[in-house]
């Protein structure tokens, strides 16, 4: 119970900290609106009635992914710059438990994107927000956000091991959008991308949310998404413990 409360309080306070940054707000809301606009123009010719709703949801998921990728991927570096990394890691907790609230928070602030793109689509393009499985949608979005938060821990721990993680971060944004089927169906991609997409929690989370919005079986997709994310959580926790030990040996926890 104490652990759950610590994670919840930590996530909430990090969400507050991130939500008070004009830069974070702009990237979480404005950029997905541009992406939603592009998506609507791409899909408006589709004969399928739910195509526009799918496009708006997809654009929102792209925003969640961007937030997790840049926020969680740079979590260690950000805390190092803010001078909070040392005091966080001095807490008598496993390193993963200290960083996890922050990666959850990046996913939660990314969820602003979904709300923004749905509202944008409704107000500007008159998209009807009629979800095929409303209950499924209400469950799928938070589960997808939670899963991406866990995936974020793996990003946080592995990116810090790489000197040129920033370049890698940029390079991963668009391919994951495509591979996960956030914008266009995976079936439209070459066959060799299938195995890669299958191990990404973003693929299953995205499919679950789209299924809830436009039709399909939500729950198995969500279960797979959650299972892959839990594996990422374990791998991330192990990697982070290794990173923390290595940083204490190499003296890289602080800037000075």
């Amino acid at each position, binding site marked *: 119970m*104490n652990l759950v*409360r*610590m994670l919840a*309080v*930590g996530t909430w*306070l990090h969400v*507050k*900290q991130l939500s*008070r*940054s004009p830069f974070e707000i702009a990237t979480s809301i404005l950029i997905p609106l541009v992406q939603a606009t592009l998506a609507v123009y791409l899909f408006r010719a589709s004969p399928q009635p739910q195509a526009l709703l799918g496009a708006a949801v997809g654009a929102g998921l792209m925003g969640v992914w961007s937030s997790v990728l840049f926020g969680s991927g740079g979590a260690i570096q950000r805390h190092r710059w*803010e*001078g*909070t990394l*040392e*005091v*966080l*890691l*001095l*807490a*008598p*907790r496993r390193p993963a438990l*200290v960083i996890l609230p922050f990666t959850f928070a990046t996913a939660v602030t990314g969820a602003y994107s979904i709300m923004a793109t749905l509202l944008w689509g409704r107000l500007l393009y008159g998209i009807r927000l009629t979800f095929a499985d409303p209950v499924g949608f209400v469950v799928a979005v938070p589960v997808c956000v939670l899963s991406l938060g866990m995936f974020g821990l793996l990003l946080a721990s592995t990116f810090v091991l790489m000197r040129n993680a920033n370049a890698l971060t940029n390079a991963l944004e668009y391919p994951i959008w495509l591979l996960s089927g956030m914008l266009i169906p995976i079936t439209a991609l070459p066959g060799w991308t299938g195995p890669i997409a299958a191990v990404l929690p973003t693929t299953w989370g995205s499919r679950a949310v789209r299924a809830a919005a436009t039709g399909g079986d939500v729950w198995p997709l969500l279960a797979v998404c959650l299972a892959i994310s839990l594996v990422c959580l374990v791998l991330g926790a192990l990697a982070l413990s290794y990173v923390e*030990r290595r940083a*204490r*040996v*190499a*003296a890289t*926890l*602080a800037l000075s």
Partner: protein
Amino acid sequence: MVLGGPYAQPVRGRGTGVRSREAGLAIEAKGLRRVYRNRTGWLRPRRTQVEAVRGVDLTVRRGELFGLLGPNGAGKTTTIKMLNTLLVPTAGTARVCGFDVVGDTMQVRRRIGYVFGGDRGLYDRLTALDNLRYFAELYGVPHRDQRRRIGELLELVGLTGRERERVEGYSRGMRQRLHIARGLLHSPELLFLDEPSIGVDPVGARELRRTVANLAATGTTVLLTTHYMAEADELCSRIAVIADGRIRALGTPAELRRYAEGRRVVEVEAYGVDDGHLAAIRRLPGVRDCAVEERGAGQVLTVQSDTGRDVQPEVLRVLSGLRLGRVSTREPTLEDAYVAIVSESSAPSSTVDLPETVGVAP
């Protein structure tokens, strides 16, 4: 107000850790060394290494307020970071509250608090209350005790009434006091204060000193590093002077002052003193050391000499041609003793001349 350690876990019996606790030692370090290794360049990598701490032996008793003094780059922060588990020592051993800093990191972390100087290390866009609440959760302060504990600490550091303001609007002194409150949330047995008064105005620094003195009075062991001699003199029961990675002298402030015995100090207010002047003054017979400090638009030159020798005329002769202000002679202070220790230890192949009663670490 209780500042003891109600949240500390029961002590496990572990080898020499138990002996340290029984001996009443909060810190026991032996032969502590730390080497920083750097690599630059990819095609032709160049490796450098710096030995920041070169074999520190140190013991701090429980309840003691212990000072670690030294110039920039002397190894103060590195020593503290090895003791608080943020750095793994290259060699040597250290036990904090009876636990090994490498093998028992969680046990050590439950018992210590760490406060460092400067603006960073807080969540600026959150309020002080949010910051304290988050760290209370992280440090395992039971939920039922958090409100009371945070209230006590806000009172202790004088931030009651300002706790709902965002930290980004705080002055440096207020941030520093919030740092201290955060470091005390889990009622640590031992508090590391790494230059807490750096950049704090004189009034803020005085309040900080009062807070630190209160902590020690209630039984918290404090290891304080500082540049400010007056701060160390006022607060610390014992002081270790560290220079070039080694502890050069260790004793009470009164004992350390004896390093400057047999000296007199000439102070000259001047404008335009340069390295050439300093070198010429150092060559004068009877001069033990000299240093110049910028103060506003001018400088204050401090010359330490043997008591039996009046060097003032020769010093003024070296400075002829410069615009001079007040010239005075005075008895040496703790600061002069500190300068004597540091400058003698940094002299090539020098050995520090130690008074017999002063304890010395290698």
